[in-house]
């Protein structure tokens, strides 16, 4: 006879192996162990096999002398630099083309995306044609097109197009004059910084005043005047402390100045135009996602179409635009590795190409290269997620 009859009435506690929570935990632990063991097996297996075949391993090669030339280097580099240095040079070249590409693709993409929604028939159709053409042709072909088409149209260095004897354009690239800063130029920079800071303060003051009193202030003109005027006045007051190093034809090619190699231009144009087609569609989708009522309400309040777009539509559309935009930025960065096809010295061409071949350290070099792309992509994701969080709907 049971001491407490209620105990029998309770549903019996399930055995441990049937408890869903414990079971879920066990499975997760088992999977983590299995994946780690598999990863370790691969790592160990690779090392063992490399050793068995007499292939040198390790990262010591990064300190040996590279002895090969690179056409575009953003930091000091010569043939006597190390393989580690080639990594930095390649990385910076990749960042340069991706960074510029992201800016250009975004600008172009927004313009085309908005143009496609224009009520002007011709503009809308042109934008639609742009999108359909450029996003449907493989990127590699576009890169070849811009490289070889543009290259063939340009003259040889001896018959360069020149712009007032200052800027030169030929097969070997675009040559710009290089500014040489003389002592005292620091003040001009200081004036520029001060002007920018002043403009920000004025903008804040103006918007506070508008919220309080409704009076508007010509912020844009004031800011432009300040940012252009103040450094210019300082510059003239100091007696123009700036000289220019002009490119000049010596031997086969132009020397001096800032050379922009055609590989960079072709890659940048191809990447921007290709990615802009996708961004345009994202922007269009974002704008269409904002209900028509918002536009009507804004118009009813008396806002002009430009203001409606800027103050009402775009801020709401951004919430839809940002997440897919992030993917496009990541795509652009990763696509920049196609540079190797036209000889732009990016990370894949310089480090995973020449350095890999000279040293033969395939596993190490490829691992480092993959690590770099992973890091760049994660950083972009992180920044865009942070921006996205700021833009998400704050419910009150």
């Amino acid at each position, binding site marked *: 006879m049971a001491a407490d009859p209620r105990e029998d009435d309770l549903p019996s506690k399930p055995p441990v192996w049937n408890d869903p929570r414990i079971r879920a935990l066990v499975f997760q632990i088992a*999977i983590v162990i299995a*994946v780690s063991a*598999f990863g370790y*097996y*691969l790592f160990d*297996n*690779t090392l063992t*096999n*490399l050793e*068995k*075949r*007499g*292939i*040198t391993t390790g990262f010591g090669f990064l300190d040996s002398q590279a*002895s*090969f*030339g*690179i*056409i575009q280097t953003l930091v000091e580099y010569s*043939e006597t630099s190390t393989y580690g240095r080639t990594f930095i040079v390649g990385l910076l070249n990749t960042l340069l083309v991706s960074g510029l590409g992201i800016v250009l693709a975004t600008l172009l993409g927004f313009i085309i995306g908005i143009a496609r929604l224009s009520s002007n028939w011709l503009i809308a159709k042109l934008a639609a044609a742009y999108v359909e053409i450029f996003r449907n042709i493989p990127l590699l072909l576009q890169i070849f097109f811009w490289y*070889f088409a543009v*290259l*063939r149209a340009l003259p*040889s260095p001896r018959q360069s197009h020149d712009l007032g004897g200052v800027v030169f354009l030929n*097969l*070997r690239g675009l040559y710009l004059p290089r500014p040489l800063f003389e002592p005292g130029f620091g003040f001009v920079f200081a004036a520029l910084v001060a002007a920018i800071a002043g403009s920000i303060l004025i903008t804040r003051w103006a918007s506070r005043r508008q919220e309080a009193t409704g009076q508007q202030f010509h912020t844009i003109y004031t800011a432009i005047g300040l940012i252009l005027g103040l450094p210019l006045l300082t510059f003239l007051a100091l007696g123009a402390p700036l000289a220019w190093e002009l490119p000049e034809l*010596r*031997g*086969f*090619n132009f*020397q001096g100045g800032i050379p922009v190699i*055609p*590989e960079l231009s072709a890659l940048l144009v191809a990447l921007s135009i290709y990615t802009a087609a996708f961004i345009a569609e994202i922007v269009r989708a974002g704008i269409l996602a904002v209900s028509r009522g918002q536009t009507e309400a804004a118009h009813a309040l008396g806002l002009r179409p430009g203001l409606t777009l800027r103050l009402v539509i775009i801020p709401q559309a951004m919430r839809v635009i940002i997440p897919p935009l992030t993917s496009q930025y990541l795509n652009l960065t990763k696509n920049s590795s196609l540079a*190797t*096809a*036209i*000889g732009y*010295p990016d990370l894949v*061409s310089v480090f995973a*190409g*020449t350095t*890999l*071949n*000279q*040293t*033969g350290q*395939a596993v190490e070099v490829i691992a480092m290269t993959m690590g770099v792309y992973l890091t760049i992509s994660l950083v972009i994701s992180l920044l865009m997620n942070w921006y996205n969080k700021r833009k998400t709907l704050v419910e009150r």
Partner: protein
Amino acid sequence: MSKLHIMAAGTALALLAAGTTAQAGATLDSVKQKGHVQCGVSTGIPGFSSADDKGNWTGIDVDVCRAVAAAVLGDANAVKYTPLTAKERLTALQSGEIDMLSRNTTWTATRDTSLGINFTGVNYYDGQGFLVSKNLGVKSALELNGASVCIQSGTTTELNLSDYFRAKKMEFQPVVFDTSDQTIKGFEAGRCDVLTSDQSQLYALRIKLADPNSAMVLPEVISKEPLGPVVRQGDDQWFNVVKWTLFAMVNAEELGITAANVDEMKAGTDPNVKRMLGTEGDIGVGMGLGNDWAYNIVKQVGNYGEMFERNVGKGSPLGIERGLNALWTNGGLQYAPPIR
């Protein structure tokens, strides 16, 4: 979804692991078993290894593969080709994807000692040179200060080039392409003043130009480029087979044995010829082959001189002189240890 990803990634990695664990072991046995030689060649260098519109491979490097197949399997056509870029070639050999690499690869200390591969000999003595457009008016490489130079990535030429310019205190701008086709296209478009590569390749690339006469090869040779077949380290038997296949071709030329007269010579009395063609002694068996190994090579592929003239010499569009690649008896460097 995520489980599916893990499984997909796992499968990919397992394949990778399988690729690296495939033990080199006895390459000779595996070649005999599968019935063909898997040979790594270039993606298309006329005279060395290039495929015609029917997919038939020809060239001096291809003939080395064919000779190995003839020696091992008795059939020079039992070869399967894997076209490789300069960047891929050594990895393909290391990973066991190919049995041998015959792709104008320069024999250097680093490659021979630290990459787990062995060079078996030299089938072409080359040196790096320069191709320039004739209207540039340049007669010597010493006039190239400040020039833009087109070059193929992943080759020893990149190092030689910068060493040469540094030693002569000259400046240059390297424009690095991925394949030799892109390199010559860049040169033709005028992206660079000079194209640099092994001299043999310059002649081969020159005939790819729309107007081959618009460009010329400068006289300077700035490096030693001994090109030869490569095998994986650690399989001495296979190393010997490839090495002696090459030696057999050189010895055949020295002894005057050709594809046309090999049967006649075999019936002759010269003991050197008899040992080589297998009517005397057991040299082939000692290598793990049949005693007719060298007979098959000469009968089906020819001797070294025939191979040279047919692919890159007088009998070809390239028209390269024997030069360094003449027999040692004619003032060249081609010399093979005796077969006895």
